[in-house]
């Protein structure tokens, strides 16, 4: 188990380094670095100062090491747009993104955990059919479109929910649903097929032979086993949720990291782009590690593995 965690952590570190290289090279590729670090009206001596200060007169690999050395201390430079350290700008917006992603993940999981087993227990029943239609629709609708439609229906026509901003729970409902929609569809599908496999197994047969009521057969014996592949999917889906949050935050004017990155790209505020990208990768990698650990909790075979 510890070896497993160690191995996974190693891979996660590699991933972060990978992102940092991409972020580093990308920003270098996009032209004169110093232009992004300085306000548009900066003079020539400012350029020279910044070039030296940021080590831009050094070879590329040294620049990268330099960048990493600063990055690990949380120094990504100053956002010219916000006049704050880029890392602070991103950290300030982190809670909003986490809240949104968590709410979406929760919605997706709740739907999957109710609809998935029910449709697997009775393949072909009405709930199974509705679930399948919902799943295939979910995979075909772009999240931002779902968001816009929700805004039109619930904010414009019915006036039930606010259409933008972050505040109380009513602000969270629509962004979370539009973001969780796709994840819910994929999870429900996987939960259904995993459950079908599990329900076919000998231990389910034995549980029924023991006279265990069907409810417990499905939700105790079945769910715990079927949850394992779904959990893996959820780890992968954190990527999708974070990716999606970039769009959803933009639509609902949700003050999170994703929207900040998009704005920063258009503002050429590259310090924030790098800091934000770094932050996102950290969350992502952290989520994957958490899933690995949870796996150990749910599956004793892994917990005891050497």
């Amino acid at each position: 188990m510890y070896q497993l965690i160690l191995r996974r952590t190693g891979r996660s570190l590699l991933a972060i380094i990978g992102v940092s290289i991409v972020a580093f090279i990308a920003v270098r590729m996009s032209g004169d670095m110093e232009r992004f670090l300085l306000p548009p009206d900066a003079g020539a001596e400012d350029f020279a100062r910044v070039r030296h200060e940021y080590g831009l007169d050094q070879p590329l690999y040294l620049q990268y090491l330099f960048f990493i050395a600063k990055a690990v201390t949380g120094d990504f430079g100053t956002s010219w747009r916000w006049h704050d350290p880029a890392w602070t700008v991103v950290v300030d917006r982190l809670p909003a993104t986490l809240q949104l992603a968590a709410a979406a993940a929760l919605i997706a999981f709740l739907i999957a955990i109710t609809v998935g087993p029910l449709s697997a227990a009775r393949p072909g029943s009405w709930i199974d059919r509705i679930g399948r239609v919902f799943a295939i629709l979910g995979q075909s609708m772009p999240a931002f479109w779902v968001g816009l439609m929700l805004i039109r229906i619930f904010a414009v026509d019915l006036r039930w929910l606010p259409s933008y901003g972050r505040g109380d729970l009513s602000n969270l409902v629509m962004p979370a649903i539009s973001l969780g929609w796709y994840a819910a569809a994929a999870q429900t599908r996987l939960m259904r097929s995993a459950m079908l496999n599990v329900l076919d197994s000998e231990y389910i047969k034995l549980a029924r032979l023991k006279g265990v009521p069907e409810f417990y057969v499905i939700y105790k014996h079945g769910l715990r086993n079927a949850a394992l592949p779904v959990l893996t999917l959820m780890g992968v889906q954190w990527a999708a949720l974070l990716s999606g949050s970039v769009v959803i935050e933009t639509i609902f004017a949700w003050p999170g990291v994703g929207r900040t990155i998009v704005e920063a790209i258009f503002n050429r505020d590259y310090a924030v782009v790098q800091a934000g990208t770094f932050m996102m990768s950290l969350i992502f990698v952290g989520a994957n590690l958490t899933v690995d650990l949870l796996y150990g909790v749910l599956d004793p075979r892994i917990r005891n593995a050497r």
Partner: protein
Amino acid sequence: MQDQATRRPEPLLVVDGLKTHIETRNGVVKAVDGISFSVHQGEIVGLVGESGCGKTMTSLSIMGLVPAPSGRIVAGSIRFAGKELVGLGEREMRAIRGRDISMMLQDPLTSLNPVFTIGNQVAESFIFHRRKGEAPRSIKDKVVEVLQRVRIASPERFFSSYPHQFSGGMRQRVSAAIAIAPQPKLMIADEPMTALDVTTQAQFLQLLRQLRSETDLSIIYITHDLGVVARLCSRVIVMYAGHIVESGAVGAIYKSPAHPYTRGLMNSVPRLGASRGRLFQIEGQAPHLQNMPPGCPFHPRCREAQDICRQELPPMTDIAADGHRAACWFPQKTPLNPVS
């Protein structure tokens, strides 16, 4: 009801004319096609036959777990302790299943849920089957006690272990514990030793015999291993293609099997002390249960087959007064000679 069950002549389980059919995309599979047998209290009956002959479907019929909606009991009756099980509602059936009739499955590795502790899984047998008026005792004590009964040393230690931490033999003991935990009257063991090695098999047989004598448990032992039947059972039922072809006391049948199929089975078992020679093998394949030949199901593979065998299904007839019966138009009367 109580006194019916205890009166000796009335057997614990009476299966009469049972037919369980399964509908598939291309026709009806007659998995069990009109079988009748009975099991007495405290008796161990061997149910023998090749895979796919209907042994497992017979046991699922008794347990009320014929896979719906494709599978269905189309005819016959199953009476258990005087109560008709065919047509019983799911709720009533569940009160009997696992409590009065329990079952052991082939492979304990796959039949134990990998993510729950042994204690948890054994405890379920108690949790869902509290008997009325039973002294309320902590479930854990009961679990430990039943683990002791299947001869698991230091059960407290194993209580919170997971199936993958056990050896095959230990796992099968745990399955046995699960099966006997609710103190059933009848236990169906479906090839429970397939996954065990020979030494462990011997220990496990010993355990089954002990359990039988300790609790007066009846056991239906499903297998294709005639050696095990000889060591464990008092009576044997031989099935072929959804039919019973022969039944009777183990001694009688082993000495002079009447049905050609049974003779074939006996001849294919290697015997210690028998002279060396070719091991007998039944020619041909078991028929597909979808397109059964008319007449005796065994006739395409039978050397003795005559015209009548191809036309009419032979009824079960008495071979001897001791309950030895067979379904064959030309039953063999001569004792089986291993040196043939």
